[in-house]
Structure formats: C-alpha cells, structure tokens
C-alpha cells in the first residue's frame, strides 16, 4: 500500500512539474531571438523539390542558421550541412540493430537519436528556426521520414512471412488497414511542412519519457510480480494441458460479417470483435507513428491483444501488415505532400549496420540479464526524453547533450 502511494505521489509530481513547464514555455521561456535583413540563398543552389524551394529563403553567411555556399556539401547535398561520416553512421546503426534484437521497441527511438543528435542534423535544422522557418520545417519532415524507413521496413518482411503462413485475418486487416491509412495520410497532410524541429523534438522527447516510465514500471517489483504471475499461470495451464491432445488446426474462416460485429474461427475456436475498435486503434497508432517517425509495431500488438482481445497469432500478422500500410502511406505522403527528400546512401549504410547489429545482439544478450538491460534503457530513455523535451520546448537542454 505504501509503495503504491509512493508511486502515485511521484507520478503526480512529475505530471505537475510537466504542466508548470508547459505553462512557462507558453509564456515565452527559452524563446530564441530572430535574425532579419540578411542576404538570402536564392536560386544559386538549384536543389530539387521542396527542400530546394525552402532553402532559397535561408540567409547567406558562415554563422548558425545561415548557408555557407563555399562550404563542402553535406546532408542532402546542402553546402555547410553536417557531413555524416559513414563509419559513424554504420557504428551507430550497429548499436540500433543490437537494441532491436535485445530490447525491442527502443531501437526506433535510438535511430531517431542518431539522426537528431549523433549526426548533428537536429542542431543544424534547429538553427534555421528563425532565419528560414520553411527550411527548418522541410528538414524536420526529412528527419521524421528517415526514422520511418528504418523501423517500418521490418513490417515488409513480416507481412510476406505471415502471408505465407496464412495467419493474416483479412477482416481485421481491412479495418485496421483503413484506420492506419487514414492516420498515415492525415498526419503528413495536416502537419507536413508545418512542424518546426523544436516542436518535433519536444514531442519526441515526451514520448520517449513516457516509454521510459513504462519500462521503469516493468522493472519495479510490482511490474515484475505481474509478469511472473502471468508466466506462472501460463505454466500451470501448460501442465494441465500436457495430457490432452492438441485440437485440429485450421486457418482463419470468417463466420459473421456486419458493421457492428465480425466473427471468425481460428484453430477451430470462435473469436469476434467490433470493427470500430481496430479502425480507431489503427487511426491513432498510425497518426502517432507518422508524427514521430516511428514504426508503431510495438503499439498495435498490445492494443489488439489487450484492448480488442484477439489471439496473438492473428494479431501478429495483421499488425505487421498495418505497419507496412501506414509506413508506405506515410513515406509516400511525406515525399509527395510535404516534399521531403531522402538521403539514400545514409539509409543504406544504416541498414547494413542494423543487419550487423542484429547478428551481434543474440550472441551478447545472454551475458546481460533482461531486467538489467531494461534498467539501462530506463536511464537512457529518461535522460534522452528529458533532454529532447527541454531542448524542444524550452530552447536549452536541462541535461548535458
């Protein structure tokens, strides 16, 4: 009881501090001064797409938030933009791949940290907030999309695998896919070219902070007990079933189809759901994934198993397809609606690194207990979350970064 009270008090305190900070931010705390009356880039660079249009209004010069035409070309062939060292990109991607195979969802967040902080694209983009807001926003879209490539690609292979295994529940896929499609079009359409890097960084930080909170809960004795209970119950049930023979297996067969209820049999067992639930879930998860530039796979599965109550195997294949649909839609929307550009060699290098990291992950995982691995990432998540949140919304980081 005491522990519960302590937990609630800490949660309330964190939320209160958060609200006070938001109020301070709204009052102008941490706002940055603007620069005006400078010579601009104009038509000199001849860069394609919206990024080429947006950079025309950026001021010329050697300072922050200015374009130095004599500097060597960097990210997306922009003179003076950070030149991403392929070795650093490769090593960072190994780290991301390692996290994917050992911890899971946090890999997407680390990919974002790489683009924003390690490669220096965040500070570069942020410097244009006042001097060239349009360029700042298009660059933000490019960063959001770069993250989505890496995480969402897993769903491509996943969808093919589950299609072959015939565990894609098409009625669920249809409503979930429709919701995801709506969410993935809506966000680039509404926010494409309108979100400044600071806003993006702030929201990204907030979500990382919340994920850190969930991870922290899982490592607490309370979270561990719940997990152990579920494991023990599963084991007990396994024991009771040992003597019984397995039922006949069969694929998914739809038995009822209406606007308020869809029913299907799977492995000879009857399941049903209200189609509105996966639609709404798909819409919100795809919208959040598209806004933050993450895959969203780690949200679909718990939502469909815990909230909609469907069996895991049906959910696994269908959610992989939903991630694929939303990723494809979101990336296409960012390119066509928001005019975001893609740095192909960077993504290629990162994919090679992720592939190497995913080879190393399983080999090194056994040396670190899972609960300690989670604790390390709790610290990382809280640190990164707080840093990005303060940097994004208040102009300066409260922790060294």
């Amino acid at each position, binding site marked *: 009881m005491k522990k519960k009270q302590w937990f609630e008090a800490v949660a309330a305190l964190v939320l209160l501090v958060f609200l006070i900070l938001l109020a301070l931010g709204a009052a102008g705390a941490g706002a940055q001064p603007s620069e005006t009356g400078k010579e601009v880039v104009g038509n000199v660079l001849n860069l394609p797409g919206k990024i080429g249009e947006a950079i025309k209004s950026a001021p010329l010069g050697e300072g922050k938030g200015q374009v130095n035409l004599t500097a060597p070309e960097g990210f997306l062939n922009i003179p003076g933009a950070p030149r991403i060292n392929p070795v650093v990109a490769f090593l960072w991607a190994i780290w991301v791949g390692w996290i994917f195979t050992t911890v899971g969802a946090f890999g997407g967040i680390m990919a974002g940290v790489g683009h924003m902080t390690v490669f220096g694209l965040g500070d570069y983009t942020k410097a244009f907030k006042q001097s060239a807001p349009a360029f700042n926003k298009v660059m933000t879209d490019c960063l959001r999309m770069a993250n989505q490539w890496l995480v969402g690609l*897993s769903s491509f292979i996943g969808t093919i695998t589950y299609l072959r295994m015939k565990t894609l529940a098409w009625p669920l896929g249809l409503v979930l896919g429709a919701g995801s499609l709506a969410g993935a079009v809506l966000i680039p359409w509404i926010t494409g070219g309108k979100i400044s890097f600071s806003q993006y960084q702030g929201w990204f930080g907030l979500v990382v902070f919340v994920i850190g909170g969930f991870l922290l809960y899982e490592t607490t004795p309370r979270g561990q007990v719940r997990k152990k209970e579920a494991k023990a119950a599963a084991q007990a049930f396994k024991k009771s079933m040992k003597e019984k023979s397995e039922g006949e297996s069969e694929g998914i067969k739809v038995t009822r189809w209406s606007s308020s209820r869809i029913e299907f049999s799977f492995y000879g067992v009857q399941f049903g759901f209200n189609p509105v639930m996966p639609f709404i879930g798909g819409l919100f998860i795809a919208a959040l994934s598209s806004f933050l530039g993450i895959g969203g796979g780690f949200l679909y599965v718990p939502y469909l198993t815990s909230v909609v109550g469907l069996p895991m195997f049906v959910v696994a294949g269908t959610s992989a397809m939903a991630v694929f649909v939303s990723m494809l839609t979101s990336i296409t929307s960012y390119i066509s609606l928001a005019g975001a550009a893609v740095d192909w060699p960077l993504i290629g290098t990162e994919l090679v690194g992720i592939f190497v990291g995913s*080879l190393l992950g399983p080999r090194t995982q056994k040396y670190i207990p899972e609960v300690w691995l989670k604790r390390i990432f709790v610290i990382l998540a809280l640190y990164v979350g707080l840093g990005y949140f303060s940097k994004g919304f208040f102009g300066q980081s409260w922790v060294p970064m």
Partner: protein
Amino acid sequence: MLNIIDTVLITFYRLTGNPVPDYFIGTFMLALLSVILGEFTVSLVFRINKKHLDGLNNHLLETHNLSMEAWRAGDRKAYTDCNREANDAFGKVFFNMVGLSAASLWPVFFALAWMQSRFMSIKFPLPFTGWSVNYVVIFLACYILARMAFGRVKHRIPYFKGVSRLLQAYEKHT
C-alpha cells in the same frame, strides 16, 4: 572504389546502344543485383542466427498454442495470461525481423543512391496524364520483377539452392 562500381554498373546501361531500352535493361540488372546481394546477406543471418531465431519462434508457437487451448477450454484468465506471454514472445520475433529486413533490403538504397547521382533529372511521362515518374518508381517496379524472377530460379543456383531449402524448412517449422 566508387569509380570502379560506377564503371561496372553503367555498362548495364550501354548494352543495346538505344537509350530507352538500355535504361530499362540497366535498371532491371541493377535491381537483380540488389536482390541477389540482399538474398545472400539474409542467408548469412539465417545461418548465423538460426538457433536463436528457432528458439524465439518455438517459444512464440508454444505460448500461442497454449492460449488457444485456454480459450477452447473456456478459461479466460489462462487465455489472457498465455496471450500476454505470447505477446512478449512476439515482440522479440518482430524486432528480430528488423535485422532480417535490413539484411535483405540494404542494397536497394545504395542502388537508388547511385541512380540518383546518374539519372536524377530523367523523367518518364505517363501517357495521357501529364504526370511523369522518376528513377525511384522505375527501379521499384524492376525490383519487384527481379524478386519474382529470382524466386523462380534460385532453387537451381548452387549456393541459393541450399539457402532456399533452409528457408523452406524454417517456414514450415514456424
């Protein structure tokens, strides 16, 4: 090194001497090369991590079967618990797929980077629409075709014959 790669790749675009067919032939060859390279690296992941992937999939299958049994037996509490266990197991399988997809798809991005440096300004108009498509669309169309073509012949190619058998056994097992 980059110059050598560029010299090799551009020869695919000079096979007939006619620019339009050459562009399509060259892009298809580039896509096929990307498919072969991707299939090779994905086979490495399978060979090196097979034991680990098998373990994850076995655990996933076991917890899933248990949850189905629980549902069938009308035990909702056991169903929820087993489903939660299966959920955790799936999380691990899903994120391991990130590594597999990266191993399979990385050459696509280098191929697109090379095409960007060579054919950025070339656009193909779509008849009667006023729209045009660039190198990305043509490469992706060729890539899908190359994947289909390679899928049909890979069981006859020495190294990939073994890989194909390994993957088939793996899919059957999971």
